[in-house]
């Protein structure tokens, strides 16, 4: 039996975990153009929260959640972006244990990071790097 996990706790843990990895680079929950005045920053977005449901009348007959959060790294200098992305990869890819720190954290069996692509946005003058991180949460 597995109860539905709390997505609010996911959000708090992601914010805390990314902040601890990237410090002193600021981390925000989603993109705001006002942030573009900063030389480097990170945003994240949570998606694909889903615990498979199994047969029968019992609501808690579920599997584990494997949510994905996208990590977006924005920097004015390209090298800074790759450096931050590498820091995140080194810290998070394959990570097992407490995710999100002592205040908001929960245990994960594995974090699996995919570096998607990098690019440049001429309008805001920022390099960007996008990564997806899947976390496997026992429940």
């Amino acid at each position, binding site marked *: *039996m597995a109860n539905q996990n709390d997505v609010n706790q996911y959000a708090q843990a992601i914010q805390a975990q990314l902040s601890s990895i990237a410090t002193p680079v600021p981390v925000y929950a989603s993109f705001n153009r006002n942030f573009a005045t900063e030389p480097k920053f990170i945003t994240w977005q949570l998606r694909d929260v889903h615990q498979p*449901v*199994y047969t*029968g*009348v019992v609501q808690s007959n579920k599997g*584990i959640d*494997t949510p994905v959060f996208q990590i977006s790294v924005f920097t004015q200098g390209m090298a800074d972006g790759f450096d931050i992305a590498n820091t995140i990869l080194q810290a998070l890819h394959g990570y097992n244990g407490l995710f999100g720190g002592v205040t908001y954290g929960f245990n994960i069996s594995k974090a699996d990071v995919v570096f998607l692509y990098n690019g440049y946005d001429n309008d805001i003058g920022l390099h960007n790097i996008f990564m997806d991180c899947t976390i*496997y949460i026992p429940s």
Partner: protein
Amino acid sequence: MALPNKVLPGFSATLYAQDGATPTPLSVGDLSVWASVSAINDVVPVEAVPAFGQDDAVASFGVAGSRQSDKIPTQAAPTSMTITAAWDPSDTMLLLMRDDAYNGTIDRTFVIQATDGTDYVAYAFNGRVGEFKVDPSPSAEAKCMFTVHPRGNQYGWSNS
């Protein structure tokens, strides 16, 4: 309360089993009595209830010179069910399945209930667990699989 009279989703099926390490299975007569069957209310948290019912079994023979051979139904056994469940190592019912598999000779009454939300239909049988293994494939939750072999002639249908 009556027999459901709608086409049911597969999700509507729930597997129950008697609790306790050494249960007393229902008598063959009681396996068709709703009051007895519905009293078994410990859920086994399985992913999906596999096909259940009766196997096909025939005796085939042909006689040289005869125009057609013949297939005669024989004592068809209740279907064995290989079941997958998300593996929680401390789930009480899954531990019972593991212990039953280790023992090999414990008869336990299992009940499959399907419902349209109001009415229930139940297939109850006595069976033994003949397999228990864990598949820790890393792409999802760990699964445990076990097979329940119903005893011959020990099943029944009932409804609310």
